[in-house]
């Protein structure tokens, strides 16, 4: 009887071990299929020409598969949206954790979590029909669908991520550190700037990196509002074509297993590598200095 019971327990243990591997299996499959469908493009174009070529004309004859302009598109929207979202996100986090009345915090904190769930297609839609005409008129542009518009909408999307994880980190700073600083005569702001923020820096960095990583991979917003021109931008009001937008816009028209099809998977692979690196950095930071709540990943 004891042996039978032990055997059953062992079987159940093995079952959960297998189910528990599902996440890693899916990740491996994703990487495997990106490689399998992406690498054949390098039979037609060299890795160097692919990554550093500035011409993206996949349907011309002969076609050009240079994705530098797409990488530049992604990089420019990510940098500009970070410049907007990081101060706003961290500012909101400080406000919630340190300044806001507990009752205000109790309302705003769940509201932020609620916004994190907004469908990105609706955010893109708003950017198209409200922000774009506004920009076009205010600045006298030929099109309001551009780098700046996409960055603003991405920032709107990234602020809740940055704010809620940073807030967890700031809120998790032990009370005695804050009390010690105040007891030494520091003002509340001096305590925040010199004690609390340095103490929660790793958690805040995790938040920022995860926010940026989301912005790199976000598809619908840049597909709808970035303008779609595969050029290296020279001004913040130039239209751009970030990598996810390019994949989403062209996959439907690329003939199965054509060079174009393989090139789009190769772009997916580049995107995968970018976000993978960012997530590893975030995970490393989070582990190095364990924080409470969502910042612990």
């Amino acid at each position, binding site marked *: 009887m004891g042996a039978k019971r032990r055997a059953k327990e062992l079987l159940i243990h093995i079952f959960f071990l297998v189910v528990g591997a599902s996440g890693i299996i899916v990740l491996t499959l994703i990487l495997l299929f990106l490689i399998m469908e992406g690498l054949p493009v390098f039979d037609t174009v060299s890795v160097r020409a692919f990554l550093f070529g500035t011409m993206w004309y996949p349907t011309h004859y002969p076609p050009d598969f240079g994705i530098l302009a797409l990488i530049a598109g992604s990089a420019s929207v990510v940098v500009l949206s970070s410049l907007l979202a990081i101060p706003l996100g961290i500012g909101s986090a400080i406000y919630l954790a340190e300044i806001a009345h507990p009752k205000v915090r109790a309302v705003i904190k769940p509201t932020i979590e609620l916004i994190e769930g907004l469908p990105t297609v609706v*955010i893109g839609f708003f950017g198209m029909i409200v922000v774009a005409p506004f920009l076009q008129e205010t600045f006298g542009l030929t099109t309001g669908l551009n780098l700046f518009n996409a960055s603003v909408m991405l920032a709107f999307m990234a602020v809740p991520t940055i704010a809620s994880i940073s807030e967890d980190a700031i809120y998790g700073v032990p009370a005695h550190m804050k009390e010690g600083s105040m007891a030494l005569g520091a003002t509340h702001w001096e305590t925040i700037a010199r004690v609390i923020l340095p103490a929660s820096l790793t958690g805040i960095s995790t938040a920022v990196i995860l926010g940026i990583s989301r912005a790199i991979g976000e598809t*619908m917003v840049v597909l709808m509002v970035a303008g779609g021109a595969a050029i290296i931008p020279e001004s913040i009001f130039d239209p751009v074509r970030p990598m996810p937008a390019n994949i989403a816009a062209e996959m439907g028209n690329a003939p199965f297993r054509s060079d174009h099809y393989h090139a789009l998977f190769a772009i997916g692979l580049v995107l995968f590598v970018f976000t993978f690196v960012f997530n590893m950095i975030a995970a490393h930071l989070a582990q190095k200095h364990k924080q409470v709540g969502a910042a612990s990943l």
Partner: protein
Amino acid sequence: MEFSGTKRRKIVQHAAFTVIRAAVYINVCALIVFLAFIAVQGISAISWEFLTQAPRRSMTEGGIWPCIVGTVYLSIGSIAVAFPLGVGTAIYLNEYAGSGRWVRIVRMGIVNLAGVPSVVYGLFGLAFFVIWLKMGVSILAGSLTLGAFILPLVIGSSEEALRAVPQANREASLALGATRWQTIYRVVFPEALPGMITGLILGMSRAAGETAPIMFTAAVFFSREMPSSIFDEVMAMPYHIYVLATAGTEIEKTRPLQYGTALTLMALVLGMNLAAILIRNRLQKKRL
């Protein structure tokens, strides 16, 4: 001198707090403008007919019933995939696994899975489910792709629910002679279930709002027939908004339809999120 130093520091603090408050106000204003615009424009477009009828005249008139049905199917299908796998993974990580090397790899995998861009899930779904497993563009392929997409979220919230079960409950059960599995099944799981339901609702809401993973795996512009099996393609609300707003021949004419669909989708997604947050807050209060 000392006095003026203190005063200066007070002024600095005042200035810093003003800047921080301004940051919060910018966020709140942006959110209010966004929600108000979609709500006001959307409400005038929504009627009983809009919600219950199919599109007419090449999608320039009529309603969005097939899109609602498609989104609900995909949302249910994806959670049917992700919930068992997610809960199972969480049970493994929290109840069985120690802190060995394999567990670190599994956790690393989940963290990275959560960061994979949604359009890459779309590519994966196309190459693996649609083409390699020959499912075609279908509810099944879309549900599996979305299921993979929401898996990390379901794992995260299920683990949180399991962690909240006091260690003493497990020890008491084991001390009474119950096996590991009996303890999990009869003691830990029932206690953690309400928390896991939060993850289930959040996962469904996330799947309902996503566009990129279903673009090449499940969704179509228009389909004359309602789907009759999981091997059929479907219309879905997020894709419907995208297509009407960008690819239609009469973008201006279908504006009301776009607003109406956007509001319906937002109401569905935010409603589910709100339900999940309320359940979680009640659970937290009960524990305190």
